[in-house]
């Protein structure tokens, strides 16, 4: 445990230095409420150490174990259903996504594309959230099929880029920033380790797959799909 604490202290050192430098040297201001900051920092260090240790004990082995069990069961249907529910389930309630969709609804209303009433805003934000969640679910289905078939990920990604660039030309200007950002906010701290373990587990068990080449790539697809789907959502609404 001590080693984990030391590691997490080192991981957080840069951010502490940056904040201290700008506070003292650039802005030349004292630290407000220093004891609160110190207690907070201690919580961050302990929290990160616990989290990393927990990953190795639970999410990593469970994710890889499930991938292995699915491969042995040999049922593509259940594997695909699992992939979709994992993507959809972890995204739909993601706090960052809820915040971004609410913000996006305001942007759209201010541009006069939807009515500026609470109902219209809420339904737009909810629709956007479900759009992103469904697109993350679909991206994991595509990602899993890609691992099973051994397709190189770069063709999917480059193809995705082309589609996004074309869609950008037709989407309303207000939605573009939100759409591009939505790709980044979908992958949360708990989803990433689980999805990574799933990909690596699958490509380790399936013959002829290399975990390094085939195991990674799920996160990339999960960050790409929402961009395209949100652009389309912006065009339809």
């Amino acid at each position, binding site marked *: 445990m001590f080693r984990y604490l030391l590691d997490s202290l080192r991981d957080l050192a840069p951010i502490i230095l*940056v904040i201290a430098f700008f506070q003292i040297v650039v802005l030349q201001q004292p630290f407000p409420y220093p004891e609160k900051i110190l207690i907070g920092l201690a919580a961050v260090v302990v929290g990160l150490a616990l989290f990393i240790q927990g990953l190795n004990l639970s999410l990593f082995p469970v994710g890889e174990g499930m991938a292995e069990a699915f491969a042995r069961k040999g049922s593509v249907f259940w594997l695909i259903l699992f992939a979709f529910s994992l993507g959809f389930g972890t995204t739909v309630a993601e706090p960052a996504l809820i915040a971004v969709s609410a913000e996006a609804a305001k942007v759209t209303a201010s541009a006069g594309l939807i009515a500026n009433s609470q109902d219209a805003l809420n339904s737009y934000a909810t629709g956007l959230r479900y759009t992103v969640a469904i697109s993350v679910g679909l991206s994991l289905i595509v990602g899993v099929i890609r691992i099973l078939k051994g397709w190189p990920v770069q063709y999917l990604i480059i193809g995705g880029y082309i589609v996004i660039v074309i869609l950008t030309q037709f989407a309303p200007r207000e939605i573009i920033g939100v759409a591009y950002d939505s790709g980044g906010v979908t992958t949360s701290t708990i989803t990433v380790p689980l999805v990574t373990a799933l990909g690596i587990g699958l490509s380790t068990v399936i013959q002829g797959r290399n975990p390094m080449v085939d195991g990674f790539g799920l996160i990339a697809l999960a960050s790409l799909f929402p961009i395209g789907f949100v652009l389309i959502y912006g065009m339809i609404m």
Partner: protein
Amino acid sequence: MELLHKIFIAFTQTVLDVAPIIILLVFFHYIVLRKPIRNLKRVLVGLGYIITGLALFLVGLEQALFPLGEVMAKQLTDPSFIGGNITGTLSWQDYYWVYLFAAAIGFSTTIAEPSLIAVAMKASEISGGAVSTWGLRLAVATGVAASIALGAFRIITGTPLHIYMIVGYLIVIAQTFFAPKWLVPLAYDSGGVTTSTVTVPLVTALGLGLASTVPGRSVLIDGFGLIALASLFPMITVMGYAQLSEWLAGKQNEDTNKNKKGG
């Protein structure tokens, strides 16, 4: 007491966040696969660590770093701090502290990002050490640093986001053809993992601060886009890092070969 209360709230929130994943795992394990979870006790202890750890991490960030970082972003982007020339108008060069802050905050928050640590650990394990944990994390952090600084420049100058994204995509596509094939999927993934718990709140504060103080920018339209650039640039730096280390290794081999021939 107030702190304990906050920790309790964060703990409940984290449990709620993790609950759908646990339900999903239990359903598929026991109903579909009909196989008990191996080392159940260990897994439960691990989950306890994850939930407690994440709750402490979030509360600590909210107590110590986020308020400071947000105030800082506001002060640094304030026209009275930036100054400007005699006529009182600001040009993009006057924002040098903002660029430095953007780069520094992008770099340092990425180093502390738990999901990047997780992916780096796995990548190093799978590649048998060919990808070093720190090499990957530093390459990604450099990419995020560059992207946030460029994103700040974009907000200040008011240039459209999609031009930056399209140029970035073209660079990624070109690099894909030249980078070592085994590293490409990992490089793509590192784009998506960079922006979560630590980076998003601070970077968003910076974007909103800039968009609300720079004349002629709209918070709603120009405030977005920093995250998007931060998910794009790490792909470029990670592939670049791989190309550089391959090139250096190749050069070293050449040198040793020459030495062998010479000796």
